[in-house]
């Protein structure tokens, strides 16, 4: 290994380490798209903890973002299906509170799925 090689190696290493520091563990830029009554009301980045109260015909539905995932925290509907959908994490995942007309969908950098069947 020559001096020139060594310099290149050190620079390359430094670049790689910097990339890890800057970009790793970012949740790949995912956001939670929240709609109320069919209109988009918020886009919440998943890497920042947040709580959002969304008004609907039945009352307030609360959506929570934590640790790279989003979920329905509370909702005035009777069946609570939205709550039971649990944490949504992957791109394309979604859940909705139909009675209160609130839905949440997770986007991803390449939208791994164009549509989800369930």
């Amino acid at each position, binding site marked *: 290994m*020559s001096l020139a090689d060594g310099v290149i190696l050190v620079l390359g290493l430094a670049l790689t380490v910097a990339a890890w520091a800057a970009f790793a563990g970012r949740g790949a830029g995912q956001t939670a798209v929240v709609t109320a009554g069919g209109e988009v009301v918020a886009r919440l980045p998943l890497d920042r903890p947040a709580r959002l109260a969304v008004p609907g015909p039945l009352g307030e539905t609360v959506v929570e973002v934590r640790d790279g995932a989003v979920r329905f925290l509370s909702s005035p509907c009777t069946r609570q299906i939205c709550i039971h959908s649990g944490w949504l994490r992957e791109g394309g995942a979604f859940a909705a509170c139909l009675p209160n007309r609130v839905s949440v969908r997770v986007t991803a950098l390449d939208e791994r799925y164009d549509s989800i069947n369930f």
Partner: protein
Amino acid sequence: MTASISESLVGASARDRQIASLAALAVVVHLAESVLPSPIPGIKPGLANAVVLYALLRHGWEVAAWVGLLRVLVGSLLLGSFLSPGFFLSLGGALASLAMLALVARLPGVTALGLGVAAALAHTAGQFTVAYLWFIPHPGLFALLPAFLTAALVFGAAGGLVVNRLCGRG
């Protein structure tokens, strides 16, 4: 050595034959690599780059450039991915790494090790640039960069060491 009939008919020079045989080798390695499973799709050992390095050290940058570009072109034609997004990613990577090689080859004392690392990192940078500008214009793309750069560092160095050995400088 008597010129063969094909030489006089087609006008193939010795340089053309060097390029052809090295390019063929690079394509074969490229195809073999494409069969390998990869933990992250898109990250390959880049062994074909070692052939380009070898061409650079033995025959100069121009030959290396032909070998590198022909590898991308012929490889994609054979794999059926010509003009697909993957083809453009490969091309961007190849052009970037060749440009880097042109610059770095001037450094006094540099061997295939340094060249290999520099070329591999430039190859990754080229691919990400094409991907960002054309296919995934989303900052989230760069979440993949650290892993790709690490692989480039490792495989670039390994390829460089192998070529050094072959050229008797290891």
